[in-house]
């Protein structure tokens, strides 16, 4: 029981970080970024390449992974989202294709066998009889720090408030002197960085393999659909619901791990389409 509680807590923090980047794009750019998982994929592999193949220090690995994620986000906005200018179906299809292409690229560069990412911090600690790796503990603590930083950024800075403004009323934002296009670009960059960072942790928690972009994407979609758009708090709470559910279910029946997440998505879509914490769209 304690094991489930502690593992659930830790995994949920990581899920919250991963879902946060997806939520930002969904709320502010109003785009379902189906290539979001690709940031995690690229982040994980860049870290692996820099630290385990090149033997560079971990901090370089993190910086490299996050930079790659940010660049991917910026490029995706400039080259795809802006070019397709609000055509949501086209954006979703092309982002999905992009993820598949990136997966093929990873196979080409690193082969399609899975790789073990060495623990970011090795070691195990026993908390209340439960075994906790320093690795996931570190991942969770950093995730929380980043989420709190993100919250402060969005609620306290001019750019952060402008991000909220664009998500609530793009015309109102524009005539307040905010350039919605620039804010979108910044959001895509932040989202990419968050995804890539989450990818390093996710890979070190599971494994590094070319198809690793799918599971986190489904988790992110679930968290955002269930949590409702535009809510950091909703994202945080629902990431914990999903995280605990997965840990709980898999301790009982590992095969069913993802199934309950799917059931949750469908149930919320049917019963409360704006999400548990979402607001009715006001127009």
């Amino acid at each position, binding site marked *: 029981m304690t094991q489930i509680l502690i593992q659930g807590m830790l995994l949920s923090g990581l899920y919250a970080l991963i879902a946060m980047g997806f939520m930002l794009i969904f709320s502010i750019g109003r785009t379902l970024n189906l290539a979001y998982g690709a940031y995690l994929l690229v982040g994980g592999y860049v870290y692996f390449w820099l630290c385990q193949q090149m033997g560079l220090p971990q901090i370089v690995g993190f910086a490299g992974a996050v930079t790659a994620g940010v660049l991917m986000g910026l490029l995706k906005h400039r080259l795809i989202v802006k070019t397709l200018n609000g055509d949501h179906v086209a954006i979703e299809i092309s982002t999905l294709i992009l993820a598949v292409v990136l997966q093929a690229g990873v196979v080409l560069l690193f082969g399609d066998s899975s790789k073990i990412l060495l623990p970011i911090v090795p070691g195990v600690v026993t908390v209340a009889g439960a075994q906790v790796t320093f690795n996931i503990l570190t991942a969770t603590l950093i995730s929380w720090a980043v989420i709190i930083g993100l919250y402060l950024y969005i609620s306290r800075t001019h750019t952060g408030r402008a991000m*909220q403004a664009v998500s609530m*009323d793009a*015309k109102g*934002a*524009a*005539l*307040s*002197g905010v*350039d919605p296009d620039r804010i979108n670009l910044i959001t895509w960059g932040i989202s990419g960085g968050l995804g890539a960072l989450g990818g390093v942790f996710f890979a070190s928690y599971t494994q590094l393999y070319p198809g690793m972009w799918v599971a986190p994407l489904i988790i992110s979609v679930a968290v955002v659909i269930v949590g409702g758009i535009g809510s950091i708090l909703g994202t945080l709470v629902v990431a914990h619901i999903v995280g605990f559910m997965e840990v709980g279910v898999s301790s009982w029946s590992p095969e069913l791990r993802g199934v309950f997440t799917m059931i949750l998505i469908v149930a919320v879509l049917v019963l409360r389409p704006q999400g548990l914490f979402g607001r009715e769209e006001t127009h």
Partner: protein
Amino acid sequence: MLVLEIENLSAFYGKAQALREVSLTVNEGECIAIVGANGAGKSTLLDSIMGLVKTRGTVRLHGEDITGLRCAQIVKRGVGYAPERFNLFPHMTVRDNLLVGAFTARNEIAKNLDAVHRLFPRLAERENQETSTQSGGERQMVSLGRALMSSPNVLLVDEPTIGLAPKVCGELAKVLQRLSKEMGLTVIVTEQNANFAISLAERLYVLEGGRITAQGTAADLSKDDILAKSYFGA
């Protein structure tokens, strides 16, 4: 001195044309009104000045051609806009709405916030209320306040009297007059309510079907019953 010159401005929504060769000029510190019925093109004209609509023709601000600039750049050059539907940020507090308005004038937040609160004491009392829960009159105040937070020298106000009680309209007229007389702002107001427009503006333009059909002082226009004619199609 000319603050705003609009020359042969036409505006399009896809193929539909909403403005036809509109020309007008506004002097510094002047308060002018654009009157017209529903669908005359009043909102389109103000949106076009802000670069929010596809247009042909020229708009000059303080002599500089601003045609084709993006909205944010036009705000930066000193144009504030309180639109017809307010376009507030519904799930933000009054204070945060005003702070977004200060996006391009971050060094003047204290001064502008103080001015807005003096103009609308109610906004100071309701600082932490979400604007989605406010009344129409209060939202109008937030909308005007947000526009003033960018330190504008030209203020565009679209149909401010919609849905306001007559008494509140009177207070609003006083606020707009204070802005132009005491604070030296150039004010452009659109209205269907001709009486409100006359009580406020030094000069008026009549907009019909996307065209300017008459212009002049209130006295000029009432002499020939032009305002009445443009409304009743007589």
